[in-house]
């Protein structure tokens, strides 16, 4: 077995036992990236010198110690290129920020640095996290490591592809409507979107501020728990961060499923779902019952309204957040304009790609005089109904189990001409963002050699419970051990 094939916790164990060094691990991963990156295109920026320097520091820290400062010490990882890294270009896969070098670190990056993490690079994504396939990157699409003609999902497609192909042991992504979970599902990984407020968003480039959350992409549930432990917790820099204790996620994994009540909302088994995917999911649900959980159907009548509500709310927030790109303080700037107004319009017209412009237009329209009540306010009221469905369901069930996606990874180019078809990829994931609840996607089988994801949704701050359910399923199956052959 090659070093880059290990999980985070396996690699961490070897480091602790001084059987390998972080420098060896890092060189193995950098070598792997060199071998596969031309095919996968997971990264926007690689930082091999920084990685080797951090590995060297980690080795100094680990030397002569029985316990490393953190399980993440000396482990190579990747960051989605929407998370600010001091001194390292942060592009959001946009021409607008192609040369932007942040003067500060996001809090999650600060916490990873303090834990002794090794940064191998910044990963590709849909521009400003708007998309479900990573094809909206202004630079190039990322390819699914499982099949050269398939998308990795999006928007954190580069993060997923890097971990899946052995270019990082784990990665951070962001999830506004499914952008961690969909790529996790398409690439055969574990992907967690924490509760809104669980992880600080300070230093994360804003897309839709009431929905955005930083999440983890990992090879298994244990790895996911270890990474979440480091990034979770209150941060006064983010006024939406919630000051509530962070449990020991790793210790909580072992609880098992016996006596847990899990709800199965049939509304998530949507029309147009691939029948083979539905069959794989039914088997996964049977497995959960077999392991001692009590599964019952539950009605969540407003689920079908989530997608239209989301695609008004998220673009509305985006249109406000992206107003800051004016070509004055940083970013792309059109210098040929006649006057200030013209400079704004040309900078934005040329600096943003088609999907970003489409969403700014949609959001601006939904917020504009005469349409605000009919679209934006209406969507926010429907958001209340969707949240109430969850509040109701969590009175009877500790968690809900649903598909992550109605299909396996689709073909590159299949949906680029039809924005609405692309939006429909998020139909099973965006409810968690609207309700602000945590959700995890875990591997639960294959259809035509492509991974399928099982999604578990829980009440606010129930990450420990989601990880426990996911771990119990994972221990009883082998899907998470499959790796793509590239």
């Amino acid at each position, binding site marked *: 077995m090659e070093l880059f094939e290990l999980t985070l916790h396996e690699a961490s164990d070897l480091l602790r036992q001084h059987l390998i060094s972080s420098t060896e691990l890092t060189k193995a991963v950098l070598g792997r990236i060199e071998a596969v990156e031309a095919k996968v295109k997971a990264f926007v920026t690689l930082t091999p010198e920084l990685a080797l320097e951090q590995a060297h520091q980690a080795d100094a820290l680990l030397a002569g110690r029985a316990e490393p400062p953190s399980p993440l010490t000396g482990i190579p990882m990747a960051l989605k290129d929407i998370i600010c890294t001091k001194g390292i270009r942060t592009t959001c896969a946009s021409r607008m920020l192609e040369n932007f070098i942040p003067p500060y670190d996001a809090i999650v990056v600060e916490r990873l640095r303090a834990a002794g993490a090794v940064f191998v690079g910044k990963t590709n994504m849909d521009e400003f996290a708007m998309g479900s396939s990573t094809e909206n990157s202004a630079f190039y699409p990322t390819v699914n490591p499982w099949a050269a003609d398939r998308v990795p999902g999006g928007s954190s497609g580069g993060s997923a592809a890097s971990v899946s192909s052995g270019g990082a042991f784990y990665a951070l992504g962001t999830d506004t409507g499914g952008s961690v979970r969909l790529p996790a599902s398409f690439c055969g990984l574990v992907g967690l979107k924490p509760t*809104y407020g669980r992880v600080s968003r300070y230093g994360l480039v804003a897309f839709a501020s*009431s929905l955005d959350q930083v999440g983890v992409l990992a090879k298994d549930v244990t790895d996911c728990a270890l990474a979440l432990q480091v990034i979770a917790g209150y941060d006064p820099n983010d006024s939406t961060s919630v000051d509530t204790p962070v449990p020991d996620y790793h210790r909580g994994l072992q609880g098992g499923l016996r006596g847990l009540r899990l709800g199965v909302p049939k509304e998530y088994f949507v029309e147009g779902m691939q029948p083979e995917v539905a069959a794989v999911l039914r088997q996964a649900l049977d497995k959960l019952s077999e392991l001692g959980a009590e599964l019952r159907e539950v009605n969540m009548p407003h689920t079908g309204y989530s997608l*239209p509500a989301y*695609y008004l709310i998220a673009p509305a927030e985006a249109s406000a957040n992206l107003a800051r790109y004016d070509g004055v303080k*940083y970013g792309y700037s059109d210098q040929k304009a006649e006057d*200030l107004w013209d400079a704004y319009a040309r900078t934005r017209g040329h600096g943003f790609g088609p999907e970003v412009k489409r969403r700014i*237009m949609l959001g601006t329209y939904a917020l504009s005089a005469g349409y605000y009540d009919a679209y934006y306010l209406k969507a*926010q*009221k429907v958001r209340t109904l969707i*949240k109430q469905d969850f509040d109701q369901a969590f009175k009877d069930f500790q968690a809900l189990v649903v598909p992550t996606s109605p299909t396996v990874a689709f073909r590159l180019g299949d949906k680029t001409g039809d924005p609405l078809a692309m939006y429909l990829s998020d139909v099973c994931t965006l409810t968690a963002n609207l309700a602000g609840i945590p959700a995890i996607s875990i591997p639960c089988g294959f259809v035509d050699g492509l991974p399928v994801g099982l999604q578990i949704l829980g009440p606010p701050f129930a990450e420990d419970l989601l990880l426990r359910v996911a771990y119990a399923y994972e221990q009883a199956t082998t899907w998470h051990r499959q790796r793509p052959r590239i």
Partner: protein
Amino acid sequence: MKLTVDQVRHVAHLARLALEPEELERFREQLSAILEYAEVLQELDTQAIPATAMVVPLENVMRPDQAGPSLPREEVLANAPQREQDCFRVRAILD
């Protein structure tokens, strides 16, 4: 809801986006399709339902009014498309 090209041009102006004529037409079609799809929300009676803008039960989060360190001026200005001395250079708005 079918949008007209004039409506799309107006929204582009509000959003400060310079669009090519073919972009205006493409957005007219695509935004019309998306808004038509969103019409389904009108099925729901939401008269008595409050709007949700935020999902966490936080209100008026304050911090102590104490001055802290700012970002180094040079590092911030390093990203400026145009600078003049220690300032961002902008276009004149008055003749």
